[in-house]
């Protein structure tokens, strides 16, 4: 911490000295013209363009903002501007021209990647001078997909970027995972600063491009947060033309409800058979002091046993229930067609001194379950030339979002703790809400209250209407970027960003919701003699509110130096920044809320009251809490590049971070993160003169990026948890145990790649090979429970190595009236654990469905692993395992004694191969893009039947496939049913490799059909362009490697149906 403050001071000292010196130099009066060089296609500044007057020496090159200040002598009249990838430009500057700014528009040579700038968030580098691996995705590609989330639009168009639908694993990874226990999400940068708020605040229609920084040379400038890669989102800016541009984009899409009847399920008839079997065995225990709910069948069997139901009634009821299917009920009552709408309007223009962009967008989505999402975003970007040397850029964004809950989704209605009988109906024959058994036994609920309690029945059909949650979020973002030219090539800029986000979350449990009635009843005290009720929890709604406020300030000061001397080009950037992120939260609950007046009634949280059912004392829950966090960071950074003869480039960068997070020691230990890279532009060599290529560049880089986990601490920390139960004294608990050896994780990346393009970029190839070494990785390791810290601890115990390649091939297959382009993305990534501190070599610690990290050296970080499987015993249907080379059914021994060497590691849970193939066809105004995504080389674990769960009431779809008689073992692996169940038999079967299936698949990612209206004779000045587009997404699997037809990306969940949409885009 001290050292970084020292660095900062040195930097300031240097800067201030320099400043006085250089401002003095600038103060010489001179005739100067500020020249802005821009790309005529995308309107972005062209950095590094050579500028000079004809007949004179080369004056210099533009800075990162595309600006060059040229001194003009009387005789200078023809300005020459050239840059790699652009047609050279000569522009007459008449003698009578007295203005002080001049714009020069360079035409790109081909519709190409040439001239694309790599935006690192700190600077915009021309691609030619970048030595790192960075992926640029322009607006056209981002517009191929619909939806409110900008990042989702990278799916299928960005190479090396992978989207994972599993909830437990990171949703987006760049070049595989780089951490085992630390944060795994890439850093998201909006324009210049990390974006701290909800990503949904960003309106995709405001976005000009996205740059994905993949290796150290590109991303190391972000230091301790760059370990997982960086995604830089660039917003749109004002236009060059003085005319007003208006653009309108609107679209509508819809998805059909999912086909629930295709979901694997246990039939009601089988479920009832199991209940009857268990009933005979005496499994269901009546407990008058805690009458936990039984299903209707069990209740009926109890009635039959007590002589309250005759066998004919029982048989007819059971027959009726056997024919019912809860999936059909969900489908009938809860799932409807979804509808998403999106509207966006933006205006941009140029008033001479100021370029401006205004964008407004509105989204309204309704899911198949009726969850609603609305968002309104407003954005304003301006760029002002205050004086020849001073440019001020501002950005302002305001967004407001709201979410509200809809109907219950498949599987969310349960009787007790996930148990649910599949013969439930949600409505009776008249369509009236039907009772579903929940929490306590229905006969108890029916009789206990004597009319004094609240109705205790649960009606899922309508309960969701009374039990709703929603949130409102507003986010404000303001950025100021002041850039000053101090001397030739030297700019300083000060940037500041303010972000404020406010979230209000409410869970409203209406007075007639089941949860509210249930809570009131549990705390009711009935006086049976006079028929009165004393309410401890008052009647009325229960409202849980949560308010969160996020405030983030980011300050940055940086100096850029960019000069070209003859054959030498130098670019230096140094700066310092501070970041502060404060979050405040407030949670409170109100009881007895009146729905109309919102008045509420106080409860007594201090004294315990008897539970109506169990009679044990408990407190009325009042989870009121306030929280406040304040995370602060200080960083210094440097990056520099040198290019010789336009051919050889070397770059270096370094950064050091410090924070106020606990553990001063670990801050001191933080080593600077750095990178170095080199690039070689072969086409500039003489020997390449005859090569028929547009581009050929080689790149190599190496460096370290970090992965700071703000949640870890090296010293014991405790957390205040409010008042202790019973004593009400202020209490705290251990939050983190002392861990003096803690260090930050680091990722070293080596990258080598090339960019190649044939003439006119008919074929363009970018290929990168990389090795990623993660060191000092935090890993969860089992710990001796005697230590008292837990069953596991997190320590710097692991290292891992990832290697792979990213290949992008763009090919223009046909040219002319009919254009056919193919883009092929192929990535390979294999990340393996190199070492992992293992205190325990018991095999069972390595069982993994691929969602957790097993940490076995030599195996993929996310591995699918389990017990050896020897099939079912033909005599009794017992699953057979293997221990020390011998087949065995001693499950306890298999589980407790199998050493890790005897475990079967099936393979990686993350795709080893992945990518996309996109074909685009264009004929006249009509274009069609079809994108196929593929993943392969990995495995997933299918869920398995366990009898323990079955007996607890959780339906098991595989039940019908169980072993029932000798011979069944030939076509099933589901064990026979036994009673009582043996826990370890279930565990062994669940964790055996027989459930591991290959996860490879090909998916139809999206289809986009677009029609561009030809502007007849271009005479229509009013409308500049019109497009009509149709889009399909979630179109399903074309092929799977597993032959059970399971979608490996969603093996257990509800598969969403295809979504279709269409829209129009107008330009005026």
């Amino acid at each position, binding site marked *: 911490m001290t050292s970084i*403050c020292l660095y900062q001071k040195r930097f300031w000292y240097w800067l201030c000295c320099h400043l006085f010196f250089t401002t003095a130099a600038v103060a010489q009066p001179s005739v100067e013209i500020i020249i802005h060089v821009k790309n005529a296609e995308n309107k972005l500044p062209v950095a590094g363009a050579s500028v000079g007057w004809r007949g004179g020496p080369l004056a210099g090159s533009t800075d990162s903002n595309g600006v060059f200040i040229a001194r003009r002598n009387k005789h200078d009249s023809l300005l020459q501007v050239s840059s790699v990838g652009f047609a050279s430009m000569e522009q007459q500057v008449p003698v009578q021209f007295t203005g002080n700014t001049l714009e020069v528009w360079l035409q790109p040579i081909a519709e190409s990647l040439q001239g694309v700038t790599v935006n690192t968030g700190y600077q915009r580098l021309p691609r030619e001078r970048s030595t790192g691996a960075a992926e640029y995705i322009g607006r056209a590609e981002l517009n191929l997909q619909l939806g409110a989330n900008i990042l989702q639009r990278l799916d299928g168009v960005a190479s090396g970027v992978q989207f994972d639908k599993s909830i437990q694993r990171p949703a987006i990874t760049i070049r595989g995972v780089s951490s085992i226990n630390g944060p795994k999400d890439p850093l998201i940068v909006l324009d210049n600063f990390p974006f701290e708020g909800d990503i949904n605040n960003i309106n995709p229609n405001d976005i000009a491009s996205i740059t994905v920084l993949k290796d150290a040379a590109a991303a190391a400038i972000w230091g301790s947060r760059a370990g997982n890669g960086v995604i830089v989102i660039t917003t749109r800016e004002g236009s060059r033309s003085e005319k007003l541009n208006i653009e309108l984009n609107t679209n509508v899409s819809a998805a059909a409800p999912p086909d629930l009847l295709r979901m694997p399920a246990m039939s009601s008839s089988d479920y009832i058979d199991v209940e009857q079997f268990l009933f005979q065995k005496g499994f269901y225990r009546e407990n008058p002091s805690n009458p936990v709910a039984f299903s209707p069948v069990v209740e009926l069997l109890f009635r039959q046993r007590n002589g309250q139901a005759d066998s004919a009634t029982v048989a007819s009821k059971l027959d009726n229930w056997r024919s019912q299917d809860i999936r059909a009920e969900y489908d009938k009552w809860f799932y409807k067609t979804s509808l998403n709408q999106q509207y966006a309007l933006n205006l941009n223009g140029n008033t001479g001194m100021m370029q401006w962009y205004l964008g407004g967008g509105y989204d309204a989505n309704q899911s198949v379950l009726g969850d609603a999402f609305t968002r309104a975003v407003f954005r304003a970007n301006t760029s002002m030339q205050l004086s020849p040397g001073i440019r001020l850029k501002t950005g302002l964004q305001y967004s407001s979002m709201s979410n509200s809950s809809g109907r219950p989704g498949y599987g969310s209605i349960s009787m007790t703790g996930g148990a649910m009988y599949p013969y439930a109906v949600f409505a009776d024959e008249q369509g009236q809400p039907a009772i579903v058994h929940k929490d306590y036994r229905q006969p108890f609920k029916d009789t206990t209250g004597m009319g004094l309690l609240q109705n205790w029945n649960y009606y899922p059909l309508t309960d969701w209407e009374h039990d709703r949650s929603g949130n409102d979020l507003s986010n404000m973002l303001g950025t100021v970027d002041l850039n000053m030219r101090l001397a030739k090539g030297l700019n300083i800029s000060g940037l500041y960003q303010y972000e404020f986000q406010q979230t209000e979350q409410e869970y409203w449990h209406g007075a007639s919701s089941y949860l509210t009635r249930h809570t009131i009843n549990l705390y009711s005290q009935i006086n049976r003699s006079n028929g009165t009720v004393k309410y401890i929890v008052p009647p009325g709604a229960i409202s849980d509110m949560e308010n969160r406020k996020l405030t983030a300030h980011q300050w940055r000061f940086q100096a850029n130096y960019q000069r070209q001397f003859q054959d030498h080009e130098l670019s230096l950037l140094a700066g310092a920044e501070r970041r502060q992120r404060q979050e405040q939260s407030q949670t409170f609950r109100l009881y007895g809320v009146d729905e109309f007046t919102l008045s509420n009634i106080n409860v007594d949280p201090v004294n315990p009251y008897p539970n109506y059912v169990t009679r044990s004392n408990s407190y009325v829950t009042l989870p009121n809490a306030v929280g406040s966090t304040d995370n602060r960071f200080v960083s210094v950074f440097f990056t520099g590049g040198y290019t010789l003869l336009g051919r050889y480039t070397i770059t270096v960068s370094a950064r050091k971070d410090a924070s106020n997070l606990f553990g001063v020691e670990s801050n001191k230990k933080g080593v600077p993160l750095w990178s170095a890279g080199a690039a070689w532009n072969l086409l500039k060599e003489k020997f390449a003169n005859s090569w028929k290529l547009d581009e050929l560049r080689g790149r190599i880089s190496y460096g370290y990026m970090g992965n700071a986990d703000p949640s870890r601490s090296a010293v014991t920390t*405790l957390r205040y948890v409010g008042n202790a139960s019973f004593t009400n*004294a202020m209490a705290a608990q251990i939050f983190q145990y002392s861990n003096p050896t803690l260090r930050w994780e680091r990722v070293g990346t080596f990258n080598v790649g090339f960019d190649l393009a044939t003439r006119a970029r008919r074929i363009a190839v970018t290929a990168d090979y990389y090795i990623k070494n993660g060191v000092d990785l935090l890993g969860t390791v089992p710990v001796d429970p005697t230590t008292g810290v837990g069953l596991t601890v997190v320590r710097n115990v692991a290292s891992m190595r990832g290697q792979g390649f990213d290949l992008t091939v763009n090919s223009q297959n046909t040219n002319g009236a009919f254009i056919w382009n193919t883009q092929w993305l192929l990535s390979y990534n294999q990340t393996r654990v190199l070492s992992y501190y293992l205190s325990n070599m018991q095999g069972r610690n390595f069982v993994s469905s691929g969602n957790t990290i097993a940490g076995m050296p030599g195996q993929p970080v996310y591995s699918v692993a389990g017990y050896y499987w020897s099939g079912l015993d033909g005599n009794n249907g017992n699953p057979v395992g293997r221990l020390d080379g011998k087949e065995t059914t001693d499950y306890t021994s298999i589980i407790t004694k199998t050493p890790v060497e005897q475990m079967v590691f099936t393979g990686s849970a993350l795709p080893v191969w992945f990518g996309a193939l996109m074909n685009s066809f264009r004929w006249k105004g009509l274009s069609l893009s079809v994108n196929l995504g593929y993943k392969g080389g990995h495995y997933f674990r299918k869920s398995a039947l366990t009898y323990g769960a079955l007996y607890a009431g959780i339906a098991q779809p595989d039940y019908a496939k169980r072993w029932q008689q000798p011979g069944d073992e030939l076509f099933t692996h589901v064990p026979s049913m036994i009673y009582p169940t043996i826990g370890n038999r279930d565990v062994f079967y669940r964790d055996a490799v027989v459930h591991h299936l290959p996860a490879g698949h090909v998916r139809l990612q999206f289809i986009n059909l677009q029609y561009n209206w030809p502007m007849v004779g271009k005479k229509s000045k009013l409308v500049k362009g019109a497009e009509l587009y149709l889009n399909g997404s979630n179109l399903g699997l074309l092929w799977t490697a597993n032959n059970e037809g399971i979608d490996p990306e969603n093996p257990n969940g509800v598969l969403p149906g295809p979504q279709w949409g269409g829209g129009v885009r107008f330009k005026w």
Partner: protein
Amino acid sequence: MFTVNRKLTLMIVGLFTMITQQGCEKFLDAKPTINLAIPATLRDVEALLNNTSVFTMQYSLVGEGSADNYFIGNIEFQALSSQSGRNTYSWQGDVSVDENSWLALYKQVYTANVALEALASLKPQAADEAGIRKAKGTALFFRSRALHEIAVAFAPVFEASTATSKMGIPLRNTTDFTTPSERAGLAASYQQIVEDMKEAAQLLPLSTSHTMLPNRVAALAYLSRYYLSMGDFTAAGSYSDSVLLLRNELLNYNTINANADYPVPARNTEVLFEGLMQSTQQLTAQFARIDSNLYKSYAPNDLRKSIFFKTATNGYVFKGNYTGSSWWFGGVATDEMYLTAAECKIRAGEIQAGLSLLNKLLQTRWKQGTWQPITGLTASEALQTVLAERRKSLLMREIRWMDVKRLSVLETANRVTMKRFVNGKEIILPPGSNRYALPFPETVISMTGMQQNPE
């Protein structure tokens, strides 16, 4: 133009310098989360020790689950979903308790150690002196209590003659989790348990604001219990006497409404320290029934019969928790001290003095005016009587297992042979069985290499 430029430039640079340079160290000194702290002040330590959910609400029932106050029918036994529950009940298998119960107790040891380390590095201020003494006493009390709980379950019976040669339990006195755990000798284990509690007794105040916050009387009561479990009746007797000098109130059971769901009031006059225990599956009313001979042993006029038990299908279930709720009582109360003092007096030959204490207790347990004081018993009769009343008074308080264990090395007449019927088979746990020291959780053994208890 350029002069303006220069001024503006300097101004802006100056401004940014101010913002970004002002106290770089100070900027990083801010506390990252308002409710997080490094335990550094007395207040922090007190807050840690106040955490009732760590220290007084998470008790395993291994002692009661393995003891003979209850039984489980055959159908119920099969319907038990937890393997460790079945093992605990049938005294079989490698698994006695799951590692979570073990962890819960050692978490108390760890948290107490964090408090003790923080107190050691605290700069003492005059105003805090009393608070520091109390906090240190509280931490030692909790550490000692947790370790004794572990010793009763997992260590063999303490006998002064063999204690130096037998294995005890792992004693952890550090917060560094990288220090390996080792089994201390039995003598060393009990020595620390006793020494900690003796120091706590010196440091703790005579009374505290809540029965869940330890005080000196509770520490003396635990010392009495410890010495009793070690077979040192002189020390056990003298500590129970000291407790009774300070607190000797008894609850008159005639004032209790036996029909209530949980008739014994919480924090009643007898409670010296209140610990709560969570019932494990096999001990809940769905499965467990009170041993029928035990139930029969209560006389009709004995109020404990109606206050402690209620009828359920196939037997009786317990409701006499000294917590006034479904929590089981895991602390100490004066009734235990009467019984311990009486036993120690009788063993020391002061039969009359012992019986008079017993009479004083039982008078409050019987219907008003029905209790006939016991007199004129021989030493062994008196001892048998006090032991029987001990079981009848202190059941379902995690004490029975300790008693069965300690009696197994005393006079033959009072040794207990416990029996279970499981799947039609009788299982016997004879005195001297290795099973009196329950096996350590398997993961603990495999991770530390500590020696497992013999089967």
